[in-house]
């Protein structure tokens, strides 16, 4: 059991949760979180937002029952954390961009600790959040779009490595744009499939890839955009 240090609302329905006690993790990895005993049944996968010594942070949006329960956590409350899980981001080469749609921005903050000069594209549908933090975290540029399509702001040919994370339609669009732009960049998508075990044992998080089935939790959540078969 870990302990909640703070749980602050940073925008309507968006919270930054700091927890004391963790087992580390690389950029792009996630934890399975649980702030209840028996109900709801499954734990919730949440990306690492930041890590420092014995504190781990998460950035989450209230999307349903589980995250709603997270939102009611207070300092000192117990929370169960299992992880880190997933492959995480590979070390990039050359000029790098992070493109986050909505809460999909979460994993890039921690990634900037390693890739300090990446350009960051943040797309929000209504309220923006964490923009200042991102500006401080990178020596590259930060582009923000509210209510539009963040992908339109990105020149796929201007980068050697592009990481993307966001809703499913956005990631599908990333794949299409990669083809249309003829970009030679290595382009990654971080998927948010529904999960149960989180460690590769149950096969419910399956991702259809060009070379067969992969597991979002263990082989992913980060995949090359070109290998995923979007439905």
């Amino acid at each position, binding site marked *: 059991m870990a302990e909640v240090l703070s749980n602050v609302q940073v925008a309507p329905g968006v919270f930054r949760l700091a927890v004391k006690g963790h087992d580390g993790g690389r950029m792009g990895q996630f934890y399975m979180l649980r702030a209840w005993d*028996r*109900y*709801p*049944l*499954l*734990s919730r996968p949440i990306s690492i937002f930041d890590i420092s010594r014995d504190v781990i942070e998460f950035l989450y949006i209230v999307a349903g029952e589980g995250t709603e329960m997270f939102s009611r956590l207070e300092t000192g409350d117990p929370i169960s954390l*299992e992880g880190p899980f997933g492959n995480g981001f590979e070390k990039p080469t050359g000029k790098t961009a992070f493109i986050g749609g909505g809460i999909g921005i979460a994993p890039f903050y921690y990634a900037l600790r390693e890739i300090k000069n990446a350009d960051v594209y943040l797309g929000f549908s209504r309220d923006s959040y964490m923009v200042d933090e991102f500006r401080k975290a990178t020596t590259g540029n930060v582009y923000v779009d509210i209510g539009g399509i963040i992908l339109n702001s990105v020149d796929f040919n201007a980068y050697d490595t592009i990481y993307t994370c966001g809703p499913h339609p956005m990631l599908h669009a990333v794949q299409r744009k990669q083809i249309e732009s003829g970009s030679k960049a290595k382009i990654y998508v971080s998927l948010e499939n*529904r*999960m*149960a*075990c*989180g*460690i*590769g*044992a*149950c*096969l*419910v*998080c*399956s991702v*259809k890839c060009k070379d*067969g*089935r992969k597991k979002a939790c*263990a082989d992913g959540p980060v995949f090359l955009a070109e290998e995923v078969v979007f*439905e």
Partner: protein
Amino acid sequence: MTNLHCTIAGVDFKNPIVMASGTFGFGKEYAKYYDINRLGGISGKGLTLHPKEGNDGIRVYETPSGMLNSVGLENPGVRAFLQQECSRWEKLDIARIVNLGGNTIEEYVEGAALINEDNMNREREGRKAVDIIELNISCPNVKAGGMAYGIQTVTAREVVRQVRQATSLPLIVKLSPNAEDIVGMAAMCQEEGAEGVSLINTFSAMKIDVYKRRSVFNNLYAGLSGPAIKPIALRMVHQVSKAVTIPVIGMGGISNATDIIEFIMAGATVIQVGTYNFVNLRAGEQLLQELENFMLQENISSLDEIRGIL
């Protein structure tokens, strides 16, 4: 000292806690989190003769105290299992159960024969990897075969009979709660020479996306598991235990020691834990500890004292 030892068809179980098929892979993943050799046994991911891709689309959906899955028996096929997993399984000091599915009777039989042959070869070399075959005639998530065989006793009889002849390994048959008559089904398995029955597999169930106006699952229905179904599973295990003399493996929603004890009291020889593995990564360790505590506290020295007491 509490004695948790159990036996099914001459196969030893250190304790009654067996991990359920499809929820524990082939043991590799969970082995990173605790010593799975402390378990009573494991039932591997359901295999079919040929590799299977499984279902497209969403494969899991949470329900109140339960979950729906539509994995659709994704698996590497019997041969790949024998080649890739058995070298690890032969080193496991627990009861090792192969869960075998199929689309046609021929597939079931060929799969069982392959496992049987491989097992005989290994046994000769003193490196057995499989102790029991669990015949899965109850998967609700595949179009052809699978559960189709598990609904009517007459249809199931043919599969059980033929697989029985194809292997000298102990055979248990995994029953579906969707069966028309689960008690009759179990009795049939006993008649056909099965060494045991395991129940229950998941309930055929449904979730509709009211905004998209379609089923959440490509395959229309999916399989319900977890604590939600435990009261029904327990009733079925009790009914079946009263009706057959072969061992019964009970499961469905087990999440704590009390649940385990209930299934044993209802007549189960050992139990299986499925969905709860997703709730607690170290479910095996936790349940074993809780079970030992319960037995000490209640002054039960062996499970035989309470098995089938109801």
